[in-house]
């Protein structure tokens, strides 16, 4: 049976939801081997037992966090050369794509990024040009290296007892850059932007007051996002920016409040399943992609929605 490698994606000792999704896609193709390249491996291992994973390989001997993507790609290449999987699946994050790119060079293999679906024959689906075109592709040379966008599949949850082995790797200096200091991201109580199934985003129209956006987000159990105008103004941290140069998100529901819908913002949210816009300006381009739009003042509209949601939850 064919074996698929997935790279375990984690932040600060916590395995991301994307990892469970990668495992679910991997199962469509064959057995799933999860590879851990992280100095937190001991903390990560038990978290994998709720996912569709058959085997876990922990790469040891390298301080991965310190050396960033070159070292991870080098380690992964060693694993690929040793077990010759039928594909490697990696989360489509900035980091994941870099690892995939370097791995493709190392393993002389074709690469596909930002897939939103994958079938048993390793044919991928991508949504390109701002969601206006759907493309099916496949890798024709080497070991297919595919990065998959978060939230593209409902992850299988259950319990598994994967076998586990250590895989010593040697650091070959492929990544000479070192991280000299890290100020860890402050984790709030809300879901991670890229993992959230609902996102409420605020823009310039909030005028710096994100309270109605946050209240609605909390009522919905949603993550909060922001446009670049809002992050540039310092109203919200840059890490919450949605768009071409921020995060690419694809939640079940995306609510844009006081956001005009510039092409760069749309590039990061256009594949959301349902899009809602609240904007004072009836001609705002965000309405072109919205399933439901309210022409109105967000300071009046959002609190009313929050109230309705809270009432419904009873």
């Amino acid at each position: 049976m064919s074996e698929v490698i997935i790279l375990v994606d984690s932040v600060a000792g916590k395995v991301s939801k994307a990892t469970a999704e990668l495992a679910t896609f991997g199962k469509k193709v064959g057995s799933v081997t999860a590879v851990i390249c992280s100095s937190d491996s001991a903390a990560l291992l038990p978290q994998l037992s709720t996912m569709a994973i058959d085997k876990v390989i922990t790469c040891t001997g390298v301080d991965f966090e310190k050396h960033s993507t070159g070292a991870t790609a080098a380690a992964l290449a060693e694993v690929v050369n040793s077990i010759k999987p039928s594909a490697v699946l990696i989360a489509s994050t900035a980091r994941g794509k870099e690892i995939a790119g370097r791995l493709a060079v190392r393993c002389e293999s074709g690469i596909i990024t930002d897939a939103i679906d994958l079938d048993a024959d390793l044919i991928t689906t991508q949504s390109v040009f701002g969601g206006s075109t759907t493309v099916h592709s496949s890798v024709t040379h080497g070991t297919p290296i595919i990065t998959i966008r978060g939230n593209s599949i409902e992850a299988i949850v259950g319990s598994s007892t994967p076998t586990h082995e250590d895989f010593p790797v040697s650091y070959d200096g492929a990544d000479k850059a070192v991280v000299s200091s890290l100020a860890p991201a402050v984790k709030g109580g809300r879901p991670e932007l890229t993992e959230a199934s609902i996102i409420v985003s605020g823009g310039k129209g909030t005028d710096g007051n994100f309270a109605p956006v946050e209240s609605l987000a909390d009522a919905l159990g949603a993550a909060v996002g922001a446009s670049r105008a809002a992050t540039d103004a310092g109203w919200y941290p840059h890490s919450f920016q949605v768009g071409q140069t921020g995060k690419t998100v694809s939640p079940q529901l995306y609510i844009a409040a006081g956001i005009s819908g510039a092409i760069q913002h749309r590039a990061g949210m256009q594949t959301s399943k349902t899009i809602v816009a609240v904007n004072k300006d009836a001609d705002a381009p965000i309405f072109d992609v919205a399933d439901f739009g309210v022409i109105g003042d967000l300071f009046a509209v959002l609190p009313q929605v929050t109230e309705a949601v809270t009432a419904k939850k009873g």
Partner: protein
Amino acid sequence: MKIAVCIKQVPDSWAQKTMGSDGRLDRASVDAVLNDLDEYAIESALKLVEANSPTGEAGEGSGHSITVISMGPERATEALRKALSMGVDDAILISDEALAGSDALATSKVLATAITAGGFDLVICGTESTDARMSVVPAMLAERLSFAQLTFAASISLEGSTVKISRQTEFGVEEMSAQLPAVVSVVEKINEPRYPSFKGIMASKKKPLVIKSLAEVDIAAADVGSSAAWSCVKDSLPRPPRGAGIKVTDNGDGGSQLAAFLAERKLI
């Protein structure tokens, strides 16, 4: 120091993009512009040289040089001219019929070959080309060249032969450093790209811009282009445009109507 800035000409981001029958982006029908994310890379190179130049200016007398490199059709000279008018010293375009349809692997191979031939010690890229949106070329260059990789820089500085950057990642705010040679990619927060001045535009006309064929950079045509691409598009379909959504004007119950819509879609 010899700096190379990799820039790409792309279809205007506002243009309606479509796929040609060959499974490739139809580029002929849309306006082409310098990838706006690469303007930040050009500006970063200029700023870095200015900060490390005895005259405070880039160009001759600064002790450093900045070369813009692009791979693309001949039309991409327009993008290179823009960079020259912003103040970089010279430009190289690698252009060849055989390059059409190249994937990121081939692109990075061609760029890496040109970078090695030019003896550059610092390569600066944008984070993404707005057409392909793969965001992998800088990492692939670092891998191919065995240069240090410092990507997604929100600030960059140079101390002797040490490059330092800071960046925001999933992990938090990271400070990174490496010895030259290095590949750096920069995010759009890093600076505000300058507009070419009239003087800059005039001066750019006399600056060297060479166009090289594949043979001139010593790459076999069989290694690049669509026939050598390691992934292939099977089909592409325009997605039906989102059906015109519902749009209501708030007359006091806009929020309630929105809540009703969400309930109907079982989103709340």
